[in-house]
């Protein structure tokens, strides 16, 4: 939004005298400077910030993974002490799940949901900003335990009691784990409510639920899972925290408590969490595969309903993580059955992707390679998962590397590969230039090979009996060779990630010399491709009226009398040019950031000094009330324009806006 000519929020005075009486405290006015990133409520900027932060934590978690693999490359490894090793693998898991995959999926959700349903923004733009800032506060808090907490959490990512108790984990690591996850949980909860309302309420005219792209559907299911699963982990984390901080007796068997309670609460959350991780990736490849097969998705409604079915059934299988914990034969039987059933909708999805590709004109772009890779790798992970549903087999596999192999095939093979594909697919939409395909393919193949080298051998190691979470092993058990292979593989993955970042840098550098990608570089099918790349701030010039699923495709293509697909319009004819005026956008605000800043302070206060809680609480309260008292729409933004619906977008004049802002501040300083 442009900086308005009238800088003053308070209109009663003589403008010449009361030049910007509030500098930083005045409402931010938009543009592209640092203030605007801190105060933005634009779902696209927030999505980008989620993505950047997630990739940062991918590196952090990746370094932790490499440390693990270096330690285990050879018998009697001595790179890490047993204690540090415990911290590293715990933080690797926590970082990758809560600080990498979930926020990266959130990046896609934030950026794409409004575009795919034809909306200008999410339902609550300021709450959206709040989610991001709370999440990043929690993420920083969680990792700050390395510095101020005497080391990371050391209880494994699921932090079973009694390992999580003060007796076995006396450092502050577990406190940071609990509070950090509570804070990120608040972020995800707010975000899920926001996105659910967005999908239900903000759809363009004609965009019925069953015309929504599969990605939007999968993200919607994910948000429902988050909405209902997070309170469960919240309870568990509070109980753990009260045990540790205030001496409560929730998990202390000596006092008559039952440590299994933690396992139940954790996995009631934990299993839906698996689908929270995997469903966005399923959605992404459900967009990529039809596009590059030049066919509509096979069995759209089966796709959607199997996603919903996974969402429901995901609630009934949690105890398969606990077959060896002594939950009794009846429970084992019931959960074993339900676990086998959940393979059905997943299988439906895999068959549908294959059927979509069947007979299609396949184009193997990098995005498509990642999508196909996802299907293949996830199938392997899914099959090894079915072997866990068989309780007797699971009894043998529990706590071995076989489990590690399985869930990495699911989470990395199914989740991360899909998200990577999504990056290549939507990169031009977000940044206005393509990622280099050659480097992209190099990235894909090194990642795929590295991934299989790392995690394939772990199946064998697990069946040989190598137990997980051990910091080293003795020679002579037959573990040496495959561990070495896995460690080499992990560095191949690292190399592939370097290729990716190099590609990002190179593509950006080369972009000015290449033709612009235009609105629709892939000849794709959903609404986001009908608007310019990068997306203008107001998204759609005019909200499209939707008449069918794959609306954008049908605007480009029709059928001749022989029912052959024919092109009826060029992209230029039907795409929007992003030149709208008169679009009304929500005003930016600093208060979400202020509110979010209070939460980590409360966290530090709980651990170190309760006075900090007071300060954090005040900051949070101030943020909340200032937010509530601040009108959603900046009254002054409209000052000159007289009516509400004026245009304040400014892709072309952001530079002008920045210059203007610079002027204002320079003026302040010189005066």
């Amino acid at each position, binding site marked *: 939004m442009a900086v308005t000519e009238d800088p003053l929020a308070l209109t009663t005075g003589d403008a010449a005298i009361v030049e910007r009486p509030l500098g930083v405290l005045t409402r931010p006015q938009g543009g592209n400077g640092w203030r605007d990133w801190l105060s933005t409520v634009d779902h696209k900027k927030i999505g980008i910030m989620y993505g950047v932060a997630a990739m940062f934590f991918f590196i952090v978690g990746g370094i932790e993974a490499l440390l693990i693999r270096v330690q285990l490359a050879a018998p009697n490894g001595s790179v890490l002490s047993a204690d540090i090793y415990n911290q590293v693998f715990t933080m690797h898991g926590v970082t990758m799940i809560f600080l990498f995959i979930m926020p990266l999926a959130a990046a896609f959700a934030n950026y794409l949901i409004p575009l795919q349903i034809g909306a200008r923004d999410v339902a609550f733009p300021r709450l959206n900003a709040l989610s991001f800032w709370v999440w990043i506060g929690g993420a920083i808090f969680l990792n700050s335990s390395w510095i101020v907490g005497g080391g990371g959490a050391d209880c494994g990512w699921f932090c079973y009691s009694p390992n999580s108790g003060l007796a076995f984990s006396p450092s502050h690591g577990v406190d940071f784990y609990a509070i950090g996850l509570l804070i990120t949980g608040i972020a995800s909860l707010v975000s899920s409510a926001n996105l659910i*309302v967005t999908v239900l309420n903000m759809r363009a005219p004609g965009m019925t639920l069953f015309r929504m792209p599969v990605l939007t559907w999968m993200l919607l299911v994910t948000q429902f899972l988050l909405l209902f699963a997070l309170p469960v982990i919240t309870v568990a984390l509070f109980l753990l925290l009260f045990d540790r901080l205030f001496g409560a007796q929730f998990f202390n068997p000596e*006092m008559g408590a039952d440590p299994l309670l933690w396992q139940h609460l954790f996995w009631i959350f934990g299993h839906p969490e698996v689908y929270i991780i995997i469903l966005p990736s399923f959605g992404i490849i459900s967009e990529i595969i039809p596009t590059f097969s030049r066919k509509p998705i096979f069995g759209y409604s089966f796709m959607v309903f199997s996603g919903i079915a996974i969402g429901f059934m995901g609630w009934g299988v949690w105890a398969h993580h606990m077959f060896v914990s002594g939950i009794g034969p009846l429970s084992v039987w019931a959960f074993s059955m339900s676990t086998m059933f959940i393979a059905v909708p997943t299988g439906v999805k895999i068959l549908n992707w294959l059927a979509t590709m069947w007979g299609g004109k396949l184009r193997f772009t990098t995005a498509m390679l990642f999508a196909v890779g996802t299907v293949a790798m996830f199938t392997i992970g899914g099959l090894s998962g079915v072997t866990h549903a068989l309780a007797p087999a699971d009894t043998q596999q529990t706590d071995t590397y076989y489990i590690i192999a399985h869930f990495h095939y699911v989470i990395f093979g199914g989740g991360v590969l899909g998200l990577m594909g999504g990056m290549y697919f939507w990169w031009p939409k977000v940044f206005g230039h393509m990622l280099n395909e050659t480097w992209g393919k190099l990235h894909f193949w090194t990642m795929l090979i590295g991934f299989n080298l790392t995690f394939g051998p772990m199946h064998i190691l697990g069946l040989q009996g190598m137990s997980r979470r051990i910091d080293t092993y003795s020679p002579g058990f037959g573990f040496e060779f495959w561990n070495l292979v896995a460690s080499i593989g992990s560095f191949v993955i690292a190399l592939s990630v370097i290729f990716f970042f190099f590609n990002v840098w190179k593509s950006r550098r080369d972009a000015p010399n290449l033709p612009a990608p235009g609105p629709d570089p892939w000849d794709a099918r959903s609404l986001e491709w009908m608007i310019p790349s990068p997306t203008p701030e107001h998204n759609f010039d005019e909200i499209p009226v939707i008449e069918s699923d794959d609306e954008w495709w049908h605007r480009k293509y029709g059928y001749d009398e022989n029912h052959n697909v024919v092109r009826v319009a060029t992209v230029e004819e039907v795409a929007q040019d992003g030149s709208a005026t008169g679009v009304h956008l929500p005003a930016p605000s600093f208060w979400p950031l202020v509110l979010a800043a209070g939460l980590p302070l409360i966290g530090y206060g709980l651990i170190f000094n309760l006075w900090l809680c007071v300060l954090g609480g005040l900051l949070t309260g101030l943020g909340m009330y200032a937010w509530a008292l601040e009108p959603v729409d900046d009254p002054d933004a409209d000052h000159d324009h007289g009516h509400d619906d004026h245009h304040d977008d400014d892709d072309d004049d952001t530079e002008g806006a920045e210059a203007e802002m610079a002027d204002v501040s320079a003026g302040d300083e010189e005066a």
Partner: protein
Amino acid sequence: MATATDAAVDTADHGHDDHGTSTGISNTKLAMWGFLGSECLLFGGLISTYLLYKTRRGPGPENTVIPTDVFDIPFTSVSSFVLLMSSLTMVLALSAITRGDHPATRAWLLTTAMLGGIFIGGQVYEFTSFIREGVGYTHNPASSAFYTLTGFHGVHVSLGIVMLMSLFVASKQGKLRQEHSETVEIVGLYWHFVDVVWIFIFTVIYLIPVD
């Protein structure tokens, strides 16, 4: 908990879409109901924890007293009655503001907040007397679970009171106009939810006899 207030204070956000919503219902209300659905799982977890632990006594003489030993049912009944009546006054506040009757709105908001205050005062009394009677927070799983569950509920009520008082002040300053009745409704939904949770707790935790 933060989210409850956010949802409530963010009510103004609903005015964004000039073309109305796809389902024809308010964004804020939808978000609030989603949040309340989510809260069911929060309180469900705490209640289940208590149910699991309600008769778990610790070893040693000082750890054996559990909350059910010292329940003061007559007092808790009065507390329940107070909270129930506050739900009535809350709904009357909403009814008043939809009519545009601001003095009545303020009267009901304040009454609701005061009844909430009496409820919390009663909870402070209950906790204090239980502790005096030997049920310490750290004594056994039953007491930890009891204080955590009812404490969470109490924190919810307290946040609700602060929201009610804020509405009261806003109304006093003339900022809570008739067209903002939805804000009152949202806070009301939260308040009734807290009441509904207490209806559950009162029956399942207090009244069902332990044997």
